[in-house]
Structures are given as C-alpha cells and as structure tokens.
C-alpha cells in the first residue's frame, strides 16, 4: 500500500511539474464542444437536444487524447521497468497509473462539463445526471483506455492505432452515460442507466488493470 501511494504521488508530482496534459485535455474538450454550435447552428432548442451526446463524445475524445502518454514516457526512459521491479504486482502498478490518469484528466473534465453544458443550453434537470454520469463513467474511460495504451506501447506513433482499439470499447460507456442524462432531461428515471454505467465501471476495476498489466509485461520483454 505504501508503494502504491508512493507511485501515485510520484505520478501526480510529475504531472504537476510537467503540467500541460491536463490543460491540453481541457482546451480540447472546450474546443470540440465549441465546434458543434458552429457546425449545426446556434438554435438553442437543437443544442439543448444534442448537449448530452456532444458533451460525452467530446469528453471521451479528450480523455483518449492523453492516453498515449500513460505509459509511454516511463517506458522510454526506463522508469517503467524500474517500477515493475518495485516488488508490487504489475496490475497494481498499472492501477496506480490509471488513478493518476483519472485525477489529471477525468476529474478536470468532470468539473468543466457543467460550464460547457451551460454553453450548450442544456436543461437544468440534466445537470445532476451529467455530473453523476461523468463521475461514474470517466473512471471507466481511464481503465479501458489503459489497455489500449499498454498494447500500443512499442508501436511508433501509436496514437491513431490507440484510438482504433479504444473507441469501440468506449461505446457502452457513451451509450449509458448519454441515456442517463437524456432520461433526466425528459423527467424520466435515470437510475437504471446510472446503475448500468456503474456496473460497467465496477467490472472494469479488476479486469482492466489485469489485462493492461499483461500487455505492459509483453512490451518490456
């Protein structure tokens, strides 16, 4: 547990020192959302209708964008193999890095989402559901994405390949996330959608670090 926390605090310190990644993800989120009114017109009713979907798609892409650095920097300078030698099982090391990824990407996106929802004129009823779905759903994005990041570790310029591998796997998160907000906006019960989303995240917690660790081990050999 001490080692686990040490790895998280190390990655957080590096993220703060090197900065950039969080800021870029947020700017990307903002920019993508801005493109939609420009693309489909400023009609408030239409924007309100598409707001949940637009917010989730943009958040999903923003989270994916920062994934390729998840293991890459540590892989290149030899830190990753040193980390595997820390005596902690590799899947826990991977989980520590996933937690850092969520803290530096998922959490900021979650905090920014309501502001962007205002820009898209989303119904007031949807805000609580938006925050809840982001809170439950973004960890799944980091968890699933870690598998893709680990698999493309030895691939030069693996960014595009990473999106091809990860985006299809993100579809359930997108569907349950958006449908929960939609339900809330229309005054329906959002709970079943939220529960399904939560089930997805809970299932991903043990499975994804394990699969990602298997992929990381391959890249180190």
């Amino acid at each position, binding site marked *: 547990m*001490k*080692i686990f926390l*040490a*790895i998280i605090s*190390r990655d957080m*310190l*590096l993220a703060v*020192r*090197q900065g950039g990644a969080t800021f870029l993800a947020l700017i990307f989120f903002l920019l993508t959302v801005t493109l939609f009114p420009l693309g489909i017109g400023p009609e408030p009713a239409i924007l309100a209708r598409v707001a949940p979907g637009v917010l989730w798609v943009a958040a999903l892409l923003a989270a994916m964008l920062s994934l390729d650095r998840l293991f890459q920097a540590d892989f*290149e*300078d*030899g*830190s990753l*193999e*040193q*980390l*595997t*030698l*820390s*005596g*902690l*099982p590799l899947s826990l090391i991977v989980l520590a890095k996933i937690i850092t990824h969520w803290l530096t990407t998922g959490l900021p996106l979650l905090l920014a989402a309501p502001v962007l929802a205002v820009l898209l004129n989303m119904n007031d009823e949807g805000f609580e559901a938006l925050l809840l779905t982001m809170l439950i759903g973004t960890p799944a994005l980091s968890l699933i994405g870690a598998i893709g990041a680990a698999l493309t570790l030895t691939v030069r310029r693996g960014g595009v390949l990473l999106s091809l591998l990860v985006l299809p796997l993100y579809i359930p998160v997108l569907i349950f996330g958006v449908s929960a907000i939609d339900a809330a906006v229309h005054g329906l019960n959002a709970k079943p959608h939220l529960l399904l989303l939560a089930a997805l995240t809970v299932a991903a917690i043990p499975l994804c670090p394990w699969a990602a660790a298997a992929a990381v081990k391959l890249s*180190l*050999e």
Partner: protein
Amino acid sequence: MFQGRDIACERGERRIFTGLNFVITPGQALVLRGPNGCGKTSLLRISATLLTAADGALTWNGSDIAENPEGHRANLHYIGHQDAVKGALTVRENIAMWAKIRATATDHTEAAMAAFDITHLADTPAQYLSAGQHRRTALARLVASPAKLWLLDEPTVSLDQAGTECLQQAIATHQAKNGMVMAATHIELGLDDAEILQLKPQ
C-alpha cells in the same frame, strides 16, 4: 545465494544461449564477459524477472524465484541501459522517489548522493545534468535503498574516472556487507575476487 541452472534464452525465434549455469554466494561478484549479442543483457534481465527464460530455473537460497517473483524483485537492484531519471525532478527528488517506491525503512538518499559525489547537484533539476551526472544519479539508487543483489548492465557507460571509482567503492562496500553483484562490463571494476562467466556467441 543466487543460482541459475541450465538457463536458456530465446529472442525473436533465435537461441541466444543455452545450458548456462552460475552461482553467486553472499559477498561475491560475478562478471559477465563476451562479445556483443552474446546475451549479457538478456541474462541480467532474466535474473531481474524482466525476461522469461526459455528453459532452466533461477533459485534464491534454494527456492525457485518463479514462485514468488515479487519477493525476488524486492531483493534486487537492476541498472540497465536507461537511467530512469526524470528531468522534471531534482537529483535529490529522483533518488528519494525511487527509495520511497522501494519502500525502504530508512532513507539513505543523502548518503547515496555523497557516495556518488553529486551532493552539490542535489537541488538541480535532472534535465540540466551531463550524461555522466545523469548516470551517477541512476547509480545512486543502489545505495539509497539497500538490496541484496545488484544487477548491473554496463554501469560505467558515460562515467568519468572519478565516477568509476565511486562505483567501485560502492560495490566494495556492498560486498563487505555480504551483498551480491552480477555485472556485465568491459572495463575492470577492481573486483579482485570476482568470478568471470564467459558467454559464447551461438
């Protein structure tokens, strides 16, 4: 005691070596010799559990390390070709961070910096270091958190004369405390009692 029996290594469908045997007893050093491509790095990485041997078994005090790889990893330090030093952190932070990740009871960071004569660089961000200073920062990990087995892959690369002497001193101290060393190196490390394992290209 760290022992390898009948170790074989395969890289990309090609046999690198087979039937390799070695024993390292406490306080002893084993130096790997041989031309490029004969598998020195592979043997070190196999010993660090970073690679899986195609055949054979490694034992630590008689028990197979495959049964408890995490336990074996906690017993060793591996210094590879890459320094694992972060440019955004200072020298002290780099060394202390690895000591923390290795969960050492007492932090020897200051002693480690003194041993490799980089105390005056303690607060310098590592991105401003020269290659030799970078290497010294990596080697300081050896002292910052104790481990019984040191696996060193060409540890003197980019070190100057003084740096090499620091390393020799560190190894001598380690051996005096019953530590074990396995090193691939082309230059004499002043390891008088070291055994030599000659690897032959297949």
